[in-house]
């Protein structure tokens, strides 16, 4: 129906501030998704894939804008202060919607009150990897070494999910594990391969070529469900009870969005995620996906904030 309306009429409706009418017809204009990380990052790739599919479903163009900075806080903050009309969204991550609130002292937004969650769009577990030339064959070997002489672990930076996962291993095993942050995950990975550091948590797809070459060995996977690209790697939950950490992505908008608009976007995202193009992309990039009900999203964010907050607090002694 709304496709037959002339742009002129639509323009007038928007100009009059006819919010209620706009909700029925949503969307009539370009939807902008802010990616709070740089071009070419996993978040960026996910956003573009899912967004392109949503654009087809809804019949309006989608525009993507990279606004990187402060672990995603800059871009997210911009979106939470925008009009909650559904035309400005952000791709949230485990970082922007769960971890940052415990890591950044003055985070300018509250992921529980300033955000309208729209759709859970996927996740990836991470692998605990060690050098292929090291003596560590199992997680127990690593823990024994940590208790005996101490080990080191790399991450893509302070307060990243990989760092906190390492800290969780440290607190759960009670071993001596020192964190060495790198400026990117790939740099940390080469340090693991050359045995400059002992272990790190890393994305399965990026680690896979090294695992095949024997440069790396995966001792465990962070998610309880395992990883589809590395099905033979045992979950860390087998060693540390209840160990279940994943990096996830969630489409979100500013607080106060019309529920109908949010649900329209939610359905469009699910449809996009069902498409062949997105499925193929997820498979090649090791991204997992399970649909999550619209009504579950708020609770999910709350539980994740609680989970990561506790790890960060336990790690506190090391997080200066």
């Amino acid at each position, binding site marked *: 129906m709304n496709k037959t309306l002339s742009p002129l009429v639509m323009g007038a409706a928007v100009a009059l501030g006819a919010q209620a009418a706009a909700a029925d017809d949503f969307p009539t204009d370009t939807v902008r998704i802010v990616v709070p990380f*740089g*071009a*070419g*990052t*996993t978040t*960026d*790739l996910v956003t*573009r894939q899912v967004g392109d599919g949503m654009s087809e479903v809804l019949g309006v163009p989608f525009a993507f*804008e*990279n*606004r*990187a*900075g*402060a*672990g995603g*806080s*800059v871009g997210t*903050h911009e979106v939470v202060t925008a009009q909650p009309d559904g035309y400005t969204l952000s791709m949230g991550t485990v970082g922007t919607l769960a971890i940052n609130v415990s*890591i950044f*002292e*003055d985070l*300018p937004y509250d992921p529980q009150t300033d955000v309208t969650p729209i759709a859970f769009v996927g996740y990836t577990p991470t692998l605990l990897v060690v050098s292929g030339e090291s003596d560590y064959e199992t997680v127990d070997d690593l823990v024994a070494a940590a208790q005996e002489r*101490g080990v*080191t672990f790399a991450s893509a*930076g*302070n*307060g990243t999910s990989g760092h906190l996962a390492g800290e969780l291993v440290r607190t759960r095993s009670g071993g001596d594990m*020192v*964190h*060495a*942050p*790198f*400026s*990117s995950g*790939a*740099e940390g*990975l*080469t*340090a693991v*391969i*050359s045995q*400059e*550091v002992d272990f790190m948590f890393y994305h399965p*797809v*990026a680690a*896979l*070529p*090294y695992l*095949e*070459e024997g*440069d790396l060995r995966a001792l465990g996977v962070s998610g309880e469900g395992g990883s589809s690209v590395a099905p033979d790697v045992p979950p860390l939950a087998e060693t540390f009870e209840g160990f279940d950490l994943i990096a996830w992505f969630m489409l979100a908008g500013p607080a106060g969005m019309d529920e109908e608009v949010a649900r329209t976007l939610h359905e469009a995202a699910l449809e996009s995620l069902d498409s062949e193009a997105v499925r193929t992309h997820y498979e*090649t*990039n090791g991204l997992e996906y399970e649909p999550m009900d619209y009504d579950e999203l708020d609770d999910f964010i709350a539980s994740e904030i609680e989970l990561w907050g506790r790890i960060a607090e336990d790690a506190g002694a090391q*997080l*200066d």
Partner: protein
Amino acid sequence: MELFANLALGMQTAFSLEALLFCFAGVFVGTFVGALPGIGPLVAISVTLPLTFGLDSTIALIMLAGIFYGAQYGGSVTSILLNLPGTASTAVTALDGYPMTRDGRAGLALFTNAAASFAGSSFAIILVMAFAPAIGRIAMDFNSTEYFSVMVLGLVAASTLSNGSTIKSFAMITFGLILGLVGMDLNSGAQRYTFGILQLTDGLSLIAVAMGMFGVAEIINKIAAPDSTATQRGAGGIGLRAMLPRRDELRRFWGPTGRGAALGSMVGALPGAGPSIASFMAYAVEKRVSRDPGKFGKGAIEGVAAPESANNASVQAAFIPTLSLGIPGDVVMAVLLGAMMMHGVVPGPAFISNEPAMFWALVVSFWIGNVMLLVLNIPLIGLFVKLVSIPGRFLYPTVMFFICMGSYSINNSTFDVYVTLVFGVLGYILLRFGFQPAPVLLGFILGPLIEENLRRSLVIARGDPMVFLDRPVSVALLSLSLLLILAPILRHLVVRWRGARHAG
């Protein structure tokens, strides 16, 4: 020979009509985008990326890579002609390129730029062809201690960078190092010098600082005399003869170009070290080995040839760590890496053996692209040189507009425009009192790397400083730095000793 079989494999794809077409499109866009002050390959690649989804992934990468190295050619044009470097690496080219323009030798400077760029790239491409898998392995053995030592060497070598007062030059390097501190500390997560501004958490933007200290400062310097053109003596001849080097100039071309190419390839092969470090170091080396260091900064052809050869070589060589380790040398390379992932290409040690057709097609296309760039750039010199005869009242607002758009486009944010403004005004005042901007950029680039690697080395060694003397490469690099510091003193002593002997 395996190499020839591989090359033949690559040529099959790279010489296909489609590949040639997209390669040309890439280098063409790259040259022009690079030539616009402040815009650079980052925006161009980010924008072109979604357009390449429909293409075969090899063809897409050939084009995107073409934009990247094409921009390195174009990037030097405004720094030579207008003293407006768009990136830190071309800031070095401006040191001697702009004085050449002022002497009416703009054509020669641009020709030197194109020729040295081509020579540097070709050298690095041959190196990539012959040793790519081996280089990837060696780079992996370079750990934090070696990085620390090589960065210290870079800093020491480059302390000779600018002319004029040594004290002021050191002060400006220190200033750059301090600017590099701004943002969230990698090791502790502590905010340093951010004044509670969220945008400063990731540090100051190198591009915004460079455009302010060079571009805006230069405009302030010139705006007062509106009807003068960029140079008082005009463009000089633009015929073929004015462009080509004389025989003595040609002799001075090869040495710096060769050394620049070798140095650039080495730096480029190191994961995480971008083209800026390569050009700074190449310039410093030339000034060290020259019999007449005084001519640098006054329009020495060596001062254009060496950094241009080095930065282009490093850009080509940087594909090794990017493809084999997934570690990009700078932001632009990082976006390119993202583009590869988007096309389903996962970098890794097995990339070359798993995807030989793609790897070799890419390498062969680099060379084709460089030949295209040479052919494209030489005729354009005549056109580019005319830029300097545009009256200031048109030129300066235009350049200012490009600076604004360029700094805005870094993060799609006006914050970087304010940063450019602050550093423009500051840079002008400092320049007026003899504080040169080039060392600031060097300190800014090297500072975070030095601090990060020193601290990481010590964390891993659990506080034992002897870690820097444990590994031979690190020891060699640190000794070389020490030698460079002591060299002037030793030379002084030798001269005095000889003098005393003659007198005796």
